[in-house]
């Protein structure tokens, strides 16, 4: 078995996302060794409530991303309302470019930039949602050699988004929401106690994530 090396996890969700994200982040260990970038559709006036609601349930560090913020293991970088979040080599960047099919943040925009920047180092996850944003982005992640995961539509508050993603990426792993955290932990680089935190793999300090 060849171990695949991943650099980051990107997650997209819409309707029902708060519940799904809460389950996801509450089941991941604080020492989870990859950065997570999360795009949740929400209104333009959305405040920082989402970050604090999620933070209450997890040892991961949850915050709305700021421009040029370094991607860090064990951190949940939330796309802020009314911005697109783009993944660059080692950090997030934000734009106020027009909404893509009524969404800003757009899941497709974030997924596409992650795929083109980190290639096969990306794990992309589409969770519950009531539109098909994320499908084209997940397709891009799979096409660039990354790993596509779709929440089993039967376990989703709204099945539209995961069903669309599954149609767009037939090779995607379909998992019940509750199975996803353990699956991610198995894929993430080891974060065993014998390894001092300083030497843990950090995306920001790796100059050559591709190849």
């Amino acid at each position, binding site marked *: 078995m060849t171990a695949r090396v991943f650099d980051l996890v990107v997650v997209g969700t819409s309707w029902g996302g708060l519940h799904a994200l809460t389950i996801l982040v509450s089941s991941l260990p604080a020492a989870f060794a990859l950065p997570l970038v999360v795009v949740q559709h929400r209104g333009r006036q959305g405040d920082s409530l989402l970050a604090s609601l999620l933070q209450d349930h997890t040892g991961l560090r949850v915050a709305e991303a700021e421009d040029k913020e370094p991607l860090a293991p064990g951190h949940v970088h939330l796309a802020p309302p009314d911005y697109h979040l783009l993944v660059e080599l080692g950090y997030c960047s934000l*734009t106020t470019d027009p909404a893509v099919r009524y969404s800003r943040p757009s899941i497709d925009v974030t997924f596409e930039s992650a795929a083109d920047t980190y290639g096969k180092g990306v794990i992309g996850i589409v969770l519950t949602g009531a539109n098909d944003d994320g499908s084209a982005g997940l397709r891009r992640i799979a096409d660039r050699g990354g790993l596509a995961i779709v929440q089993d539509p039967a376990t989703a508050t709204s099945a539209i988004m995961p069903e669309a993603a599954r*149609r767009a990426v037939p090779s995607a792993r379909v998992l019940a929401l509750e199975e996803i955290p353990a699956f991610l932990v198995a894929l993430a680089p080891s974060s065993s106690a014998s390894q001092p935190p300083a030497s843990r793999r950090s995306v920001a300090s790796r100059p050559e994530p591709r190849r």
Partner: protein
Amino acid sequence: MALPVTLAAAPLAYDPELEKVEIALLLEGIYRHYGFDFRAYAYASLRRRVWKRIQAERLETVSALQGRVLHDRAAMERLLLDLSIHVTAMFRDPDFYLTFRREVVPLLRTYPFIRVWHAGCATGEEAYSMAILLMEEGLYDRSRIYATDINEVVLQQAKAGIFPLDRMQEYTQNYLRAGGTRSFSEYYTAKYDGALIARSLFRNIVFSQHNLVTDRSFAECNVILCRNVLIYFDKTLQTQVHGLFYDSLVTFGVLALGSKESLRFSKFEECYEQLDSREKIYRKVK
């Protein structure tokens, strides 16, 4: 079957490393031939805008776009709009204006004359918003707003002061949430399908072209507003522009950035103190 979605991105077969080379050559060509310097723009967003233009021109490669813009000035103008336009609205982020009233206006009252530089003003909506705020606080008569942008086309729109009528409802709501004390309709006249900004607001605004990448400081300012503009620059250029802002601010002058921008990742952090825990409003302290 769902409609196919076109990403503003290279076709899949494109090698990302080759794409990087081609985009660097495109920007170098534009700089050497036309003088516009986009070489230190943030790559991920620049690249999306370049591909949008390639798709709109029905071309296949970055190199093809390079050929077209270098030989066809009209195509260059179209790309220039794509690359330099910032989306804006009157009283965008109402909370920012509320905080500005609470934290910054009391400081401004201590100055006999107030110079405000609005850097990257685009079509002017936020510059006029600041004029309204200063007027309602009784400060506008002793203020001057220098509103600058790199793009001459958007500056012409800003100077005209005519905005789409169908956005006035949204702007009115923003205005009220921003702490507006009058009726927003006092500030414009509806004409055909446009809203003409009240003449009294034009009085102390100067719109002019300024390039943050290549131009120098032009005044000693009490306030610099530059919201959601630096996000389009890479880290090196951000630092350079922060140097320009630092040089252009009086001691205790105020720098206002977008709410998701930060001095945290720049070397100027220790030169400022943050006036509010949430909004990125800073005061130069050394």
